[in-house]
Every structure is written in structure tokens, then in C-alpha cells.
């Protein structure tokens, strides 16, 4: 049986979480708007340099493009990988990337492609300013107007940390959630197993509180659900019958 009071509580929680999120993002948006309203935006030069591509139906044109790698940690593309010309969100999301490309396209004869590539990788936050050549530093300074702009930039720091830890966090959290679900779905008294698993991290009082709480009881109730029990038994019976039939034929 589902407790109606729980549903109304969940509704309230969802409502207040949504209101808090909207307020937080709204306040940040207002602060950003106030801070950015007085600042003059540097006009981009590259739309003047890059040709506009328009094709009539059935028409074919050949263009040559220079390409740059945006992610230093990824492997090189294979010969069979398809290339497609498209805009990338990195241009908007990664700080200083647009400025570097704009500087290069505005003065292509002044900068080397390899220096531009190093500058692009520098915006990932993995390359130290000291390891760059004077020419590469000059390019970054001319593009951004700052010396070592990536140092201490929170967006670059976050993306660097996310690329290093993102996979690990995602895998570990999924693993914990999935195995927690498996314990609940497949063991007769799941909270005893869950308790033994977390007892090393939290105090015995908290474990006791958890087991007596609605959450603990709900897990045990879910595990004892008749439908679930019948699913477990039927799967086992089906598998056993299949094996018995296989071995009866052999004999």
C-alpha cells in the first residue's frame, strides 16, 4: 500500500527544490547581467575572413580547412572516422578559445599553426604557462590581453577536474546505486546487508536510526513484495527446467 502523506511530502520537496533552483539561477543571471552590462565586447574579426558557404541543390564545392585538436587527452582519429563540419559548444563554453581562433584568423600570416594548436591546448588548463615558447605566449597575450589567463580561472579548473574525475565519479556512483538496488531486489532481508556495508563509514547510532527509519523499513517491505518474490522464483524455476531438459535429452 502507498502512503498518501508520503506523496504530498514528495510533491512539496519537488516544488521547493524547483523554486530554490530557479531563484539561484535567476540571482546569478541578474548579477551576471549587471556585471556585463557596462563592459564593451571585443568585436570578432573571423566572420570577415571566413567565407560564407552556400550550396544550391545538387551543387558541389571543394574547400580546404585547417583543423585543430580541441582535446589533448583523446586519441587521434582513425582513417575510417567520418569528419563533419559543424559548430562546437567548446567555442562558447571554453574561455579564451574563441579569442585565440579570432586572433589567428585575423592575422594568419603572423602565427604558426603549431603555436595555435599549443594555445588551444593551453585553454584546457593542462599546459603550464612556463612550458610554452615565447611565440606561443605572445599569441595568447595578443588574443586575450592577459598573461597566463588560464591560471586560477574557475571554468577551466572545473572542466579539467571534470575530465579527470568525471568518469570515475559517474562509474563509482552508478556502481554503488546499481548494487544497492540489486541487494534490495535479490536478497530476502536487504537492510541487514546494507547495514554491514556502511557500518565502517557511519556510527552505530546512525545505522540503527536508518534501520528504524521509514527508508529502512521501505527497503525491507519492497524486498518482501509478493510480485518480486514470484519473479525471483519463476526465473529460478525456468532456468532449472531448462537445464533439466538439456541434461535429460543428453542422458
Amino acid at each position: 500500500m502507498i502512503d498518501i502523506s508520503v506523496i504530498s511530502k514528495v510533491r512539496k520537496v519537488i516544488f521547493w527544490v524547483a523554486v530554490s533552483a530557479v531563484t539561484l539561477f535567476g540571482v546569478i543571471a541578474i548579477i551576471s547581467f549587471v556585471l556585463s552590462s557596462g563592459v564593451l565586447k571585443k568585436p570578432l574579426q573571423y566572420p570577415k575572413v571566413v567565407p560564407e558557404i552556400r550550396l544550391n541543390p545538387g551543387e558541389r564545392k571543394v574547400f580546404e580547412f585547417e583543423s585543430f585538436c580541441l582535446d589533448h587527452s583523446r586519441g587521434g582519429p582513425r582513417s575510417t572516422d567520418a569528419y563533419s563540419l559543424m559548430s562546437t559548444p567548446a567555442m562558447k563554453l571554453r574561455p579564451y578559445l574563441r579569442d585565440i581562433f579570432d586572433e589567428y584568423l585575423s592575422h594568419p600570416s603572423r602565427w604558426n599553426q603549431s603555436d595555435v594548436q599549443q594555445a588551444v591546448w593551453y585553454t584546457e588548463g593542462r599546459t603550464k604557462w612556463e612550458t610554452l615558447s615565447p611565440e606561443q605566449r605572445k599569441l595568447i597575450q595578443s588574443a586575450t590581453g592577459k598573461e597566463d589567463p588560464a591560471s586560477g580561472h574557475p571554468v577551466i579548473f572545473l572542466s579539467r577536474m571534470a575530465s579527470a574525475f568525471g568518469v570515475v565519479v559517474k562509474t563509482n556512483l552508478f556502481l554503488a546505486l546499481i548494487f544497492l538496488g540489486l541487494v534490495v531486489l535479490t536478497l530476502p532481508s536487504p537492510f541487514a546487508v546494507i547495514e554491514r556495508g556502511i557500518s565502517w563509514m557511519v556510527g552505530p547510532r546512525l545505522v540503527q536510526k536508518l534501520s528504524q527509519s521509514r527508508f529502512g523499513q521501505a527497503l525491507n517491505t519492497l524486498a518482501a513484495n509478493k510480485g518480486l518474490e514470484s519473479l525471483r522464483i519463476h526465473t529460478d524455476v525456468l532456468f532449472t527446467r531448462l537445464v533439466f531438459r538439456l541434461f535429460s535429452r543428453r542422458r
Partner: protein
Amino acid sequence: MGFTEIYGYILSYFGIGFLGIGILLSIGLIIPACYWLFTSLAVNKGSVVFRRMLVMLAVIYISFSYLGSPAFYEAAGWWKITFLGTFILGFIVPVFRMDIVRLDRRRDRGLAWISSAWWILLVFSEALLVSGAPHQVVVLYLFIGIAGILCGSMIGTTLAQTARRKIAESAQAAGGQ
């Protein structure tokens, strides 16, 4: 800086906080998750087939999503074939050696050992990934190999146990007549 840049700049501080919480949680939860894996896998009581099938699906999902992440692009190109090969190996060995299966065992230690090897390799590979070690192809192949053996042996061992029970029942029935 424009509106978008400042908006992203402020939001990234919150992002750093959330990522920090995620890192702490993932470090704290990986150990109970490992205990839950060993317990649900090794116990020979209750609905074993249902449990092992779900664990197998979970192991396949986690291993595949981990190796399919962009961080390992091109690192281990033959991992699906490796998984299939080791899965078959893990399935065949317990089925062909069902004569040594003991039905009175409460826990399956072999499965617990293989699952602990799978877990250790996963944590080791994650540590290498975080430390920025450039080459971990050997670890990745070992990891997917162990994942294949684990999944194959889960089904193989369960099949061997069920078949052994059938043989024991048939022998008992024949002895009774």
C-alpha cells in the same frame, strides 16, 4: 566579459563544489558497493539464478560504460572481442568441470575472488586515469578480460550447480528403484 562568460564563471564555482561532493561520495560508496557485490554474488541461498543474472547485467553495463567513455577512445580497440572470448572461457570451464561442484557449499568463493579481482582492477584503472598516466592498455584488457570471465562463470557455475543437482537427483531415483 560578456553575460554568458560571467554566468558560466559564477556557475563554475557551484560546479566545483558539486564535483567535490561527487568525488567524496564516490570514494566513500565504492567500498560498501564492493561488499554488496560480494554478498549478492557469492551466497548460494535463495533465488540464485535471478540474482546472478542481474549481477551479470550490472557488471556488463558498468564495464562497457567505463570502457566506452571518451577517456579510453582508441585505447583498447579489441575490448568487445576480448570480453566475448573470456565470457565463453568463463562459461565453459565450470560447465566442463561440474564433477567438482559441491552442492552443500553456502558461499561460492571462486566467484567472490573473481569479483574482487574485477573490483581491484576497476579501482586501479580509475586511479591511473585520475593520476593522468598516459598508457593503461594492459590494465584495461585485464579488466575487460576479468569482467568476461566473471560474467561467464556466473552463468556457468549456476548451470553446473543446477545440472549437478539434476544428476544427483537422477542417481538417487535410480538407487531407490
